[in-house]
């Protein structure tokens, strides 16, 4: 990660999920990890691709691909560890990422539509990067994946 940090300017982590580049507020991001193995077992929770082991802790792997890029994320061994707050309790989760993650400082322009999962936009050298509300993005991605399952079953 490269840092252009300034205490007065908010910072964000830019990551790539599938084909889409997005940003998350830095406060919610713990670290970038490499994990060669994702352990999988039967379950019914949308978006969870398995779990990874990190320093003796088990982290659920949350694939945001269905909601953000319209497809499951391709295989990767890199994960961005983020902290969620579920029922007011913190839990770290691993998001599969493609390519490098970047720590950037910038001013976010708030999104006009506050109903969606994009809270605003960052201008990175002319590229507009969506800044996500992680919990809203998870909820939307889960809803998308729930729609996929019956559609996939109907096609098969």
């Amino acid at each position, binding site marked *: 990660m490269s840092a252009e940090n300034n205490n007065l300017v908010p910072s964000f982590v830019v990551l790539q999920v599938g084909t889409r580049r997005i940003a998350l507020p830095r406060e919610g991001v713990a670290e970038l990890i490499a994990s060669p193995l994702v*352990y999988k*077992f*039967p*379950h*019914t*929770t949308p978006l*969870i691709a398995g*779990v990874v*082991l990190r320093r*003796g802790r*088990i*982290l*659920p792997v*949350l694939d945001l691909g269905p909601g953000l890029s319209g497809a499951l994320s391709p295989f990767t061994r890199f994960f961005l560890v983020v902290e*969620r707050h*579920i*029922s007011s*309790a913190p*839990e770290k*989760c691993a998001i599969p990422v493609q390519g490098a993650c970047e720590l950037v400082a910038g001013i976010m322009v708030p999104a006009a539509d506050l109903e969606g999962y994009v809270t605003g936009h960052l201008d990175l050298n002319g590229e507009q990067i969506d800044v996500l509300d992680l919990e809203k993005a998870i909820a939307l991605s889960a809803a998308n994946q729930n729609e996929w399952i019956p559609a996939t079953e109907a096609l098969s």
Partner: protein
Amino acid sequence: MRILLGMPRSFRGEELIWYRGLTVLGRKVLPVADPRGFLTAEELQRLEDENPGLLQTAGHPVGTSRHERERV
């Protein structure tokens, strides 16, 4: 099995009934099945009759145990 970790809160489906939690064996993560997640009341009674005390050792109410860490 030396340790049983509660299911991460991100899980919210039927697996919370199927599994008591997760364990690590030989650097692999495995779910630990909860017999009450897939056996009928009759089958559970038969299991208890044939193995007195087994379910008391293995079980505690689903929902209260999710985030506990216990040694087995």
